[in-house]
């Protein structure tokens, strides 16, 4: 895919060590959880924005790749500290490409029909000023929590 390279702060870049016991795995999980926090907190939490782009085959076919590249490039160019990652299918086929934006301290918002024009609006309006733009997809499901 090559996208891994483009991701900022990709945690798998660290050298991989073997996980040899369940205790190891649990330790790893806790590390990663706080690790995810570190990657946001270390860079001034007030200014870190998280963008996830739905990149399943169908999303890519509707232009998600271009949208992801746009975010990577433009957030950088516009000096907005952000993490842009890819993710799988969100299930909203009718509204591809879809992205999720999480502003610090707020619930994530999913936007559908994200072409470059809308991507630009999202950066300029939602990410910069918190003003919502068209294309919001209300989340209407719940996810299980695997905690034992």
């Amino acid at each position, binding site marked *: 895919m090559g996208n891994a390279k483009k991701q900022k702060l990709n945690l798998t870049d660290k050298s*991989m060590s073997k996980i*040899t016991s369940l205790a190891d795995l649990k330790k790893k999980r806790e590390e990663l959880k706080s690790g995810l926090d570190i990657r946001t907190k270390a860079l001034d939490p007030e200014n870190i924005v998280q963008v996830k782009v739905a990149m399943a*085959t169908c999303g890519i076919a509707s232009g998600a790749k271009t949208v992801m590249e746009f975010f990577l490039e433009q957030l950088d160019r516009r000096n907005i500290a952000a993490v842009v990652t890819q993710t799988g299918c969100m299930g909203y086929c009718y509204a591809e490409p879809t992205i999720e934006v999480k502003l610090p301290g707020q619930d994530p918002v999913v936007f559908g029909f994200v072409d470059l024009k809308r991507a630009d609006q999202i950066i300029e309006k939602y990410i910069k000023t918190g003003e919502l733009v068209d294309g919001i997809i209300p989340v209407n*499901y719940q996810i299980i929590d695997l905690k034992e």
Partner: protein
Amino acid sequence: MSKYSMHLLVCGGTGCHASESDAIVCNLRDELEAKGLMDSVQVIMTGCFGFCEKGPIVKVMPDNTFYVQVKPEDAQTIVEEHVIKGRKVTRLLYKDPVTKESVSDSKHMGFFKKQLRIVLRNCGFINPENIDEYIARDGYQALGKVLMEMTPEQVIKEVKDSGQRGRGGAGFSTGLKWELARKNQSDEKYVVCNADEGDPGAFMDRSVLEGDPHSVLEAMAICGFSIGASNGLIYIRAEYPLAIERLKIAINQAREYGLLGNNIFGTGFNFDIKLRYGAGAFVCGEETALIHSMEGLRGEPTVKPPFPAEAGYLGKPTNVNNVETFAAIPAIILKGAKWFSSIGTEKSKGTKVFALAGKINNVGLIEVPMGTTLREVIFEIGGGIRNGKKFKGIQTGGPSGGCLSEKHLDTPIDFDNLIAAGSIMGSGAMIVLDEDDCMVSMAKFFLEFTVEESCGKCAPCRIGNKRLHELLGQICEGKGTLADLDRLKNMSVVIKDTALCGLGQTSPNPVLSMMDNYYDEYVAHVTNKKCPAGQCKSLMEYIINPDNCVGCTACARVCPVNAITGERKEVHLINPAICIKCGACMEKCKFDAIFIS
């Protein structure tokens, strides 16, 4: 950083739009303007909430207040009470149908529990190419638990007790399948993941593999431990290049962490997974055909027994499960059989992923507990029928399934109810049909697929389906008779009873169920030579209404086959013997004088 302290989200889905959500937006904005609040409160129209039944919806953020059945004139109250005074407008709140109490926070509304994501728990949330994100969301914990704390028998019992049934379509108990594979002694056994997703309109397996590949790898290792296998194979069609790519990345990452390979978690358990590519033949989704294809033989099914659990891949005991089946296993292990079996109906436990397609507004992938009704799926989650048309039917289970009609809308979806209604669960494809769809043409369409995909090994499937298809073609052309309808039915039953494998045994399902539910439409085709939905070209007739025709000659000039005759300023006439039913005349006519009978 946000200059807005409050957002009013107004549903702009088709249903709410039809009930004046536009006007609500305008009124809210006017009210805010009048009160000088435009800079701190933003009104925005959103996509469908799926709660069309109680629309129009207005949701207030950040406090998650959910107003239902809002009218444009309620805008003033919402702004004056909620926005300015911070008091919720009780009369507009959703009332719980059971407790009759107002629910102010949308997170506590039963409606939002309609979709429950177990299989899709990580899809669209984690980066599928990063194993760390999977681990951070409790990934591989289930494998750890199984290897360190459980015996194979305990794992199998847990899976059995969960009541999970195979999501590939047949609905066989997963735990029982594992138990059978465990019982057969052999020096080598295999765990196979069936990722040969072939139903037109089904894409849940691809989505899981592309969005959460590790969940499948983890489950395969758990299965390997349970049945005593150290080799896993994923049979995936080459048409899924991205899923293959992500699986490869996932397998490599898991190996690097030691979560696949030798001596996993230091327990001495070895398990590794390899990929096997299929060429995309539908029949290779059948487990014996799949195994033959992996062995390098022709992808043809063989008679069971012997079942793969006895003699499968390379003659060794083999357990084949579908992608979706595997993806739920880590959740079952971590949260327990009791939890899983508390979801769903008496004999179908857990959730099912459905791919919604066809004439439905919110085409997409959903996951609901078993027992959810078709009505809830289509009208509440799916947002209803496109363009305000009337619902006619829903084809469940792809070309192997049946078409259910309006009378089945309130049937709770589970394996047994769908069979009782004349369809099957199948892989979970759902194709919604509206009033414009002809049920004879639809049956013909699905058979076209099975005729194409039949491997040709057994006569009922190879020849029988071909004859069925021909008969349906004749009926569409107006050359069918009442006796043909009986022949259709008889032949379908014989094919079902005598075909070798699941493909042939289910291929007449669309014909049988459509004849059952829409018999009048079939009769109309053969006796009146009419297609009520207006789809069968041969049965349509373009007619000029003499009352409206002014003799402008526009239709005669546009007709490509000169089928229209008539003098200027006199009523024109279409010769049905010449007419090719292209519809050009009707499009051209400015006086609505041409209609289809």
